[in-house]
């Protein structure tokens, strides 16, 4: 029985990765949930929007690197982030003008907008592949670890190490900053309040003189920023591959729905619920249990509930359970 070592192992392999992944999902889900709340449809192109923003960040990072611009211990991608956000914002605003606005004017049914977003998904997907290609790209640089296993062991004299990658630290800090800024914006500023009013009751908002097109433009700007940040953090932590970003659609939607579509607070909670369940269910618990059990004992198998390839199954199962028992999500979402 060795609680300290058991906890360290757990923290190293489950808690730290899950917190980082959860933050990435939460920021992604915030984008989905905002579009759902304001524009009232599920945006299937969100994964590819993330991919586009991240791609610009990757390209600018490479350009900075070639010019010798570095951020010291921090990844250069952080410097490139504003450019990525600007490019992504331009893309989604053009898309909105060229595609979505037509259907908004027609008051098309949400499901038609979902199909339209499928078309946008195809185009954005091909755009990313045209420019950067379908292959995996790595663009993280700077210091790799905030705390490496070896340093931790030397520092504490314990047998188990604790690793915190720089990207994980940056992810969590950025997530906190982004979420705080978003909530301050939504709750304290006039524009943010008008967005919430529009989301709650469109007709009443129109009556009180809120300009819907302005609300839509601001929503897209925020969504572009969120998507680029989420994509860049994910790419720094793992790697950038267009198809992986397309596949992220599923856990992101699961997070948004589990939390309650249209509810920003729910999106964050949902992101962490999904991330923690994915990581815990697919983690091999052998080492932790060996520390928890009596001295010298260790479980026979890996004690892995499901193999890692089933992580989609986990997010999906949670999604289904929540929908069956609480159809509007953990936090009360909208149901249009």
């Amino acid at each position: 029985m060795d609680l300290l070592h058991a906890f360290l192992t757990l923290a190293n392999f489950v808690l730290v990765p899950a917190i980082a992944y959860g933050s990435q999902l939460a920021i992604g889900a915030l984008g989905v949930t905002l579009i759902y709340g304001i524009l009232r449809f599920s945006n299937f192109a969100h994964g590819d929007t993330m991919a586009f923003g991240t791609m610009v960040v990757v390209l600018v990072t490479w350009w900075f690197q070639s010019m010798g611009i570095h951020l010291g211990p921090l990844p250069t991608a952080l410097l490139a982030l504003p450019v990525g956000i600007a490019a992504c914002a331009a893309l989604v605003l053009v898309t909105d003008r060229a595609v979505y606005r037509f259907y908004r004017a027609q008051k098309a049914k949400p499901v038609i907008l979902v199909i339209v977003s499928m078309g946008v998904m195809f185009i954005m997907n091909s755009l990313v592949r045209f420019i950067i290609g379908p292959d995996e790209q790595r663009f993280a640089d700077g210091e790799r670890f905030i705390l490496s296993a070896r340093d931790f062991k030397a520092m504490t004299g314990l047998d188990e190490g604790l690793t915190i990658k720089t990207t994980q630290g940056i992810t969590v800090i950025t997530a906190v900053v982004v979420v705080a800024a978003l909530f301050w914006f939504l709750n304290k500023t006039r524009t943010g309040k008008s967005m919430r009013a529009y989301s709650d009751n469109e007709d009443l908002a129109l009556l009180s003189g809120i300009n819907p097109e302005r609300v839509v433009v601001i929503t897209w700007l925020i969504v572009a920023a969120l998507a680029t940040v989420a994509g860049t953090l994910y790419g720094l932590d793992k790697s950038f591959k267009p198809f992986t970003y397309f596949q992220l659609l599923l856990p992101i939607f699961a997070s948004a729905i589990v939390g309650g579509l249209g509810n920003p607070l729910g999106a964050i909670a949902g992101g962490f619920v999904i991330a923690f369940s994915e990581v815990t269910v697919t983690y091999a618990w052998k080492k932790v249990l060996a520390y928890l059990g009596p001295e010298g004992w260790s479980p026979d198998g890996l004690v892995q509930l499901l193999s890692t390839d089933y992580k989609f199954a986990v997010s999906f199962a949670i999604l289904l359970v929540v929908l069956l028992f609480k159809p509007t999500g953990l936090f009360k979402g909208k149901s249009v």
Partner: protein
Amino acid sequence: MSDTGKKIGLFAIVGGLILLTGVMQSWNSALLILNMGLISAIMALGVNLQWGFAGLFNVGVMGFVALGGLAAVLVSSSPIPEAWSAGGFQIIGALVLGLAVIVAAAVLYKKMPKGIARTLALLALLIVGFVVYRAVFDPAVEAVEAINPAAAGNIGGLGLPVLLAWPVGGLLAAGAAWVIGKTALGLRSDYLAIATLGIAEIIIAVMKNEDWLARGVKNVIGLPRPVPYEVDLQNSASFVERAASLGMDPTTASTLWVKGLYAVLFTVVLLIILWMAQMALHSPWGRMMRAIRDNETAAEAMGKDVTRRHLQIFILGSAVCGIAGAMMTTLDGQLTPGTYNPLRFTFLIWVMVIVGGSGNNLGAVLGGFLIWFLWVQVEPMGLWVMQTITSGMSDGPLKNHLLDSAAHMRLLTMGVVLLAVLRFSPRGLIPEK
């Protein structure tokens, strides 16, 4: 009458495009496009049943297609008796056990009063059930996968004729659709979309990872065929003679003959399903479906059981996709779970239905052929365009990049076609009446 003229004209254009491929490129590629076009048309009919008739938003087509492919392996590949004696039956037993646990949990949930006691009992049942299930399942799987892992390592098939796999594929997909429909059909349209998207991913994940079932990513190759092999034809004196009398060399003649036979088989299936779908559309049942689609509340007020009808048509449409999936795996002669991609097997089918005309069976068939033709031919066309653009450029990374990027032309085309149709002709090329 002009309506019929338009339909004939559109089909003639698509037929002409395929013929043009035969003349300009080769008859071999024309027949390839035709065969996959036939299969795509059947998939589009399945999606059209769900979306066009009933307004169900299913983006899990890929899962049902893959299940059809799985059926082809399970029915037609040769049996492996050693695997069954080693642990095949134990695997089946474990799966039945798992199912029993889930059923018991459902019964428990219904029977016990709400409260802490129920939650605890449910949790205990599920945890104990899962542990017992894994204890039975894992050793059996290990035993089966240990048998000749280089060539088999799975439970094999039944060794039955592969044509039988087509209806079985439909049944398998229908079974899965029943389970999914029971849980997910009560959800709102966007939730149903995400749910089906997730289920399709899970089906693919299972097929990739459960090596005992169909070898996972190690793929099953060399499935038996319903048509003769080219080599046998080339060795048959009478066939060579007939080919020579037509002025063809035996190799080309044999490949064309085999593909032609497939085309005949697929056409028969397509015509049967199309006829059934047309009859359904014009029957009182079809009118009821459309009434439910257009106004659920009103249909319910008329005493129609909306949930049951939705479940019914969800199963039917998925079964059609399963049949098409089994046919596709038969045509390929192999099952490669790694190649199933939602863009190709779910969203592309959706483009077919929307472009062809949702709610109209002929439209779905037309969309199947047309979009498949574009999907295949856009890549060479894109390459040609890129070569023309870059012909004046000096060799360098930019030129190479542009030439490489021609491969991504198809996705762009599909997106543009879908958006253009939705904008300028939202009811498709052959609209619903």
